[in-house]
């Protein structure tokens, strides 16, 4: 027994030395647990680079409330288990704002964040019903949900047809798993409401074979095709569309369509392609210019400059502008150090914030954690993205019905 207690003592000493916990009172930190090596690498490098650049810029200007800010980037390889590990580790280092940019990991962290009272940002990923702030106190999917985005796409189509959708046919081409299936419900509701005909075209993962889908689209000949796919699947789709002589301007993509995809389709061939987005594309943005002047021109950027010429970099800037703005508000209102509660209040005091023309203005409230879910449709004209609409957020009642129905299931 004596031996055992001795062994235990040694063990605990070694443990303590190895894994010693740290005290609090540190700069404001954001934990970026991203998938930098597996499925989400089409966007994570650009987004995390934007986060790091923005943090550098803020620190050059004196930080928030006089204190520097810090972003901690870690890889979780899109594995829920490693995401939880990242979350647990960083939250013990005093981080209370997290972003995962991965649906499986966001889902895995959500129950813990809710339990521990830490802020889980999940723009564009995770469960969409988390915009319901009355149920999901600590989760902020700021930006459009896929439901809201799909509804806005329909609103745009309605504009094109002068407000009458009764003899319009809309196709929906989607990845046949939860990401792509999510908007179906809302589209079906809207099709009943507005009287347009809806055709569903599931695409099996990973989307490299779409020959059957697009020949079916050709036969059905819908007026517009809303597309819920990612990365290389857009390129495959555009090839099949050309083969089937379907004009490119029928294509309305989810926000996951970037400059890399355009380059792969071919700048000319992609002419007319549309996408829904909540950020301004291109480089003609005040914040972007500032980052170029202050960081990249002096060789202090956080990564290759090519990464910045991508809409997902702008998406990242938008996401992290919101997070830092909320921190600033929190510091203004309740001083330093920023706590989870004051940060939450900071987020919920954001009103019409658009990061100086970078994105759709967002207004976060205690009920609406999505910030309003505004998007707009942009069209590729061969050189640049041309906005087709204002920032819109339509059919909000229909969207919120779906949100409430889904979020009420969480409480059970």
């Amino acid at each position: 027994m004596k031996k055992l207690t001795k062994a235990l003592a040694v063990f605990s000493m070694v443990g303590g030395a190895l894994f010693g916990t740290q005290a609090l009172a540190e700069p404001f930190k954001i934990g970026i647990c991203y998938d930098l090596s597996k499925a989400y690498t089409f966007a994570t490098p650009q987004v995390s680079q934007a986060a790091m650049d923005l943090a550098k810029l803020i620190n050059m200007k004196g930080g928030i409330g006089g204190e520097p800010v810090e972003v901690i980037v870690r890889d979780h390889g899109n594995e829920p288990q490693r995401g939880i590990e990242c979350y647990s580790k960083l939250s013990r280092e005093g981080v209370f704002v997290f972003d995962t940019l991965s649906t499986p990991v966001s889902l895995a962290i959500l129950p813990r964040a809710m339990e521990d009272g830490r802020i889980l940002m999940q723009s564009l990923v995770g469960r969409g019903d988390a915009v319901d702030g009355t149920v999901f106190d600590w989760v902020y999917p700021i930006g459009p949900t896929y439901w809201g985005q799909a509804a806005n796409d329909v609103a745009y189509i309605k504009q094109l047809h002068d407000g009458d959708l009764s003899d319009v046919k809309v196709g929906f081409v989607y990845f046949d798993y939860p990401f792509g299936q999510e908007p179906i419900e809302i589209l079906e509701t809207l099709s009943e409401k507005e009287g347009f005909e809806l055709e569903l075209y599931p695409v099996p993962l990973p989307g490299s074979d779409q020959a059957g889908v697009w020949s079916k689209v050709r036969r059905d000949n819908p007026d517009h095709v809303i597309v819920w796919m990612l990365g290389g699947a857009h390129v495959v789709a555009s090839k099949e569309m050309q083969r089937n002589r379907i004009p490119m301007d029928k294509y309305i993509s989810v926000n996951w369509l970037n400059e890399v995809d355009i380059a792969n389709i071919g700048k000319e061939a992609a002419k007319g392609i549309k996408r829904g987005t909540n950020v301004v594309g291109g480089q003609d943005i005040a914040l972007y210019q500032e980052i170029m002047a202050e960081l990249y021109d002096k060789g202090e950027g956080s990564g290759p400059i090519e990464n910045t010429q991508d809409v997902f970099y702008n998406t990242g800037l938008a996401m992290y502008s919101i997070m830092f703005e909320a921190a600033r508000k929190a510091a203004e209102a309740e001083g330093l150090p920023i706590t989870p509660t004051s940060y939450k209040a900071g987020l919920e005091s954001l009103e019409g914030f658009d990061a100086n023309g970078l994105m759709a203005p967002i207004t976060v409230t205690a009920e609406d954690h999505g910030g309003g879910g505004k998007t707009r449709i942009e069209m590729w004209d061969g050189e640049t993205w041309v906005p087709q609409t204002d920032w819109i957020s339509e059919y909000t009642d229909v969207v919120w019905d779906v949100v409430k129905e889904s979020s009420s299931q969480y409480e059970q």
Partner: protein
Amino acid sequence: MFYRLSGVHHANYVSDSRIFKVPADRNLTAFIFLIGLAAPFIIPSLYLNSYMLPWLIWTAAALGLNLVTGWAGQLHLGYAAVMAVGAYSSIHAARFGVPWEFALIIGGLTSSVIGSLFAFAALRVKGLYLALTTLAMQFVMDWVLTHSPAISGGSHASLQSPTLALLGQEITTDTGFYYVAFGWCVLVTIFMLNLKRTGLGRALVAVREKDFAAAILGVNSFYYKILAFATSSFIAGVSGALLVATFFFLAAPEQFSVAVSIQVLAMVIVGGLGSIIGSYFGVALILLVPGIVNGLVVTLSDGLGMQIDVETLAHIPNAVYGALIVIILLIEPLGLGKLYGNIRDYLMVWPFDQFKK
């Protein structure tokens, strides 16, 4: 010297079929068991909760796969699907109001039934063909999960697990979750240790080595194969349910995807087919090493003040981890369990073995 053999005689069958034939093995196991019991008091909660707990549950799961692949010799590429069946049916049962004790058993039994149903179809074929049929099972299950909101929990395909309660006690603390996982892992380990020395285990090994030779000896190979599938599926089902109840707190299809099936198989192969301690090592390597190496690489690059961009930083651990698997399998193709076995064999006769060289 370390594994003292003097005075150890097996004069009858009962003594010869003991679990631990050498006292040192028994003592070592008891010591590790005690450390396991004391873990919540000596290991910081971060490591308890994000390393130890998943490690134990996955080990229980891997032991189940080891039963069918390592003992009965049937390659199984749809193991995560079987875990999913157990997880989803237990959670649905628990949400319906069934006490967790029964919900877990329901999960295990449903897995068992579905797992052996597939086995019926699958066992008409052998080897690689069997591997492909079980892989098909995985895809069928993935499809069912992503296409039936009633099972997967709405349009986000995430199903919230009710609070785990066992024996009338709600379990909400890290320590509580840990002990549940620990208890289940110990239970499965004891079962597997006993399997080795019973007729069932020997029959499974006979089937593995040559099924028709086993048939000639009077072992009904089809029956034993089904039995192996059913038992391992039961273990998979309960492990899957516990994984969700104590670790993820909600079930999502990605937690049981084909990649996970391959990971579990890798755990078993790297650990060593048919080795119990190997399963422990294998799970540690496949499940925990990526995270640990990642942490080490980050600390190292921070410590040295190197400016490595985040993407490279994320890929270095993957390379290290891949290299580690290759090196281990090159050194000992029979896996980590055999590596441990070699050390044990060496120490068993130490220092006298030295004269040979």
